[in-house]
């Protein structure tokens, strides 16, 4: 298929009379050379509309080979947006203040799962108990940022940027990408519509809503549409970059589109998170070179109606979280040995419940770590004790970056200094 790379594109017969055509053409060839080094697309020689013969540049199609060593580690960062209540997800049943401060919201100790002397899991997390028991799921409590920040938006930026004091807009996962070998345009992939702060930065990030949509429509016949798009979007604006990333990502994405959705037991719930993780599994199993993948679950901002064991948003959201993660790891099959999933929220909730079955913005939270390399089946972190006051917060005893640092150093072998500048992590022990 490389014939057309090395032969002259036949300028005379192809010139459209456009002044910049030759330059555009050269740019096209350069891009093609880079592109085809990665992808083994097929040349489609469609008829010209004007009947002037084959289109020398016409290339489309999809990747024929996987781009990265299929054995590499994969990190899935699952963001619980809106600030999840860690005190409901992993309940400190041995702290009496918890029950005093939450007369209606507290989860009864007798109903907790995987309980130890101090903690237990919310009953809606039942689908995760097998992973807990088999040692591939752990929780680290009282985690968060060094100083409280109760603004959703400022806290999300800060926690995903993870470089306090730096004014560069460069998320920690983007810095991690910079440390990883590999050339796939999908190396950093976000599920959704926007690049999250964690992935934002100098290295390209692919964003995909649904795997099946990750293609450039109108490119089936020949390469004309891609050629024109590349010519139109040569600038340095954010959208120019997005268009180019979209094209290279969509070309590489062929294998993921060809990988069928799994039908694991337990099944994925029919929720946004369930669908997203089903797609993440396809991406990982297809071997397209995605190493860092972000997924969001929203609706954790439960000022009202968090509810009880019988009803409410907590039961619903926690159940969705647990079913989705359990299905995801079952679906991965052998690839589960490569995938580590971490949950993160911008901050936690206050200890004291408010008047309508909810909680207001707080501080410390719990993080779950699941999958490859996890020393699971236990709770990590140091418990600071709770206070039943209006301002009573779960204090942070473990910087969230210590947990993340352990994941990235153990799974990817990168240095902490590059990913979390100026940060000296403490040992958590959650990763082998």
């Amino acid at each position, binding site marked *: 298929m490389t014939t057309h790379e090395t032969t002259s594109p036949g300028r005379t017969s192809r010139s*459209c*009379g*456009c*002044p*910049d*055509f030759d330059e555009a053409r050269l740019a096209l060839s350069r891009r093609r050379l880079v592109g085809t080094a990665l992808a083994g697309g097929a040349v489609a020689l469609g008829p010209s*509309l*004007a*009947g002037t013969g084959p*289109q020398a540049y016409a290339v489309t199609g999809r990747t024929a080979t996987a781009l990265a060593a299929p054995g590499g580690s994969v990190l899935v960062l699952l963001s619980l*947006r809106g600030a999840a209540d860690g005190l409901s997800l992993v309940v400190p049943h041995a702290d009496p203040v918890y029950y005093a401060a939450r007369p209606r919201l507290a989860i009864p100790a007798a109903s907790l799962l995987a309980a130890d002397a101090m903690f237990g899991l919310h009953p809606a997390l039942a689908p995760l108990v097998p992973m807990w028991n088999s040692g591939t799921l752990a929780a680290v409590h009282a985690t968060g940022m060094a100083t409280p920040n*109760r*603004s*959703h*938006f*400022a806290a999300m930026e800060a926690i995903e940027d993870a470089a306090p004091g730096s004014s560069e807009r460069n998320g920690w996962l983007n810095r991690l990408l910079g440390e990883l070998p590999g050339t796939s345009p999908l190396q950093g992939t976000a599920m*959704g*519509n*926007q*690049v999250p702060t964690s992935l934002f930065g100098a290295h390209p990030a*692919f*964003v*995909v*809503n649904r795997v099946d*949509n*990750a*293609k*450039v*429509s*109108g490119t089936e016949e020949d390469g*004309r*549409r891609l*050629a*024109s*798009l590349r*010519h*139109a*979007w040569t600038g340095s*604006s*954010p*959208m*120019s*970059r*997005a*268009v180019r*990333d*979209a094209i290279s990502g*969509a070309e590489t994405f062929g294998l993921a589109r060809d990988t069928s959705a799994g039908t694991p037991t337990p099944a994925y719930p029919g929720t946004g998170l369930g669908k997203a993780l089903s797609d993440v599994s396809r991406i990982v199993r297809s071997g397209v070179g995605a190493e860092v993948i972000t997924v969001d679950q*929203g609706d954790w901002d439960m*000022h*009202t109606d968090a509810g009880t064991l019988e009803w409410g948003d907590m039961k619903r959201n926690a159940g969705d979280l647990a079913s989705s993660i359990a299905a995801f790891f079952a679906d991965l099959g052998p690839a589960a040995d490569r995938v580590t999933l971490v949950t993160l929220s911008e901050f936690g909730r206050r200890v*004291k*419940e*408010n*008047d*309508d079955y909810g909680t*207001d*913005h707080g501080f410390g939270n719990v993080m779950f770590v699941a999958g490859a390399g996890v020393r699971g089946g236990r709770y990590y972190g140091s418990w600071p004790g709770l206070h039943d006051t*209006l*301002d009573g917060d779960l204090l942070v005893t473990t910087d969230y970056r210590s947990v993340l640092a352990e994941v990235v150093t153990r799974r990817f072998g990168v240095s902490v200094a590059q990913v979390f500048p100026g940060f000296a992590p403490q040992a958590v022990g959650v990763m082998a």
Partner: protein
Amino acid sequence: MAKDRPTLLSPSQRHLVTRFGYGVDATLARDVRRAGGASAWFERQLTRPGSFPDAPAEAVRRWWPDLDRKPADLWQRQVQEVRGGWQVMEDYGRWLLVRRIRTRRPVLEKMTEFWEGMLHVPVSGDAQFTWRVDYGDTIRRHALGRFDQLLLETTTHPAMLIFLSAATSTKRAPNENLGRELLELHTLGAGQYDEDDVKASARILTGWHVDLWKSWDRSYVKEDHWTGKVEVRGFSHTNRKADGRAVTKEYLRYLAHHPDTAHRVCERLATKFVRDDPPRSLVKRLAKVYLRNDTAIVPVLRALVASKEFRASAGDKLRDPSEDVVATYRALGVEVGRPTRNDSGANAMIWQASGLGLSPHAWPRPDGTPVTDDVWASPARALGSMSMHWSMAGGWWPSHGLRYREPKAWVPAKKPIRFKDLVDDVSRDLLHRPASRRLLETACLATGCKAREKIDREHGLYQWGFPRLLAAVLDSPDHLAC
């Protein structure tokens, strides 16, 4: 063909009406010319929008009768599984999109959209949907008025009270949700308040009530109002009375007139209508105008448009997903008819917007639809836009309840047209500007045609290749930028 070309607005006029409109078409260009130019048109849009007859846009509301049902009625229909709230909210988004396509009062519509973004109540949500259409209507009434009045209306509106948990907040443990976001998102801005301010803000707002899940009536419940001294960023009140409505009003008036609010409102305006990261000096100037005019919006918009920063920003903004959908319909001159099926164009439009990343006011977080480009400049957005442009360039989808123009709109019946002239015609028609050299090159690459090639109705481009040309124009930065 060339002699029939419509006169184009000058680049600076085009810039103003593009940034404050939804895409320049022949009707809009005529309105501008008749008004005596873009500045005069803008002034009339600001002060007398009613002087632009808008019956075709007004008529659209009747296409979706659920938009005018009362909250309790909507709720009953949801409970009885007649029609779900999410479906009514889809209608709301559809109505907005078709209205934006048709309206001759784009500045009012654009400002309504702007405030609905800043004072955000998402359309999704099982409780607030009951009041959500009324919320948008309320904002439209104040969109070119004064911010202090707008803020009072939105903060105490049932949709906002429900969404940010104030509808059931009581003095026993005041819910901080609205009290906080009022300070952070609607007025002073992040970093301009502390946690004590949040608590006092929440206390002031207790008492405003909505009868959730029952009548959905709004009321003021004095027994729920927290009394006692409150202080928020320089606002202080003894707050002794059980009826806290007067305190709320004073408090909101204070916030609306605060210099930090002036800065925040004007920064968002400048970000949306000038460019991402607007110069501080511009924001400062606008904030002064805002304060000097008792929070009136119109003088601020006048000053913004008169600024050199605005004039220099032509083409610097990226259309967001909804703007891309609306501009694409307007550019192609697609006629949208009353929907009769689920997949009629007027209905399908909402899925087109969400395919690009977001349907109107569906942003899930309280900070509202972002006004910076970087959020929308993502590969997923690019793929979504290209997909929509492609399917609409060919008139393939949506196809029901719409009328697309045929290639004969551009290719004359008798005399062939040179490809470069054809591209120029299409560019003038779709983008209201002559074809740039790059656009011509792009069109050559997209179609395989040469610049001087003659196109007639026997030509392959006319016969079946025309979507390639239209898509190339729609995919270009010239269409996506505004």
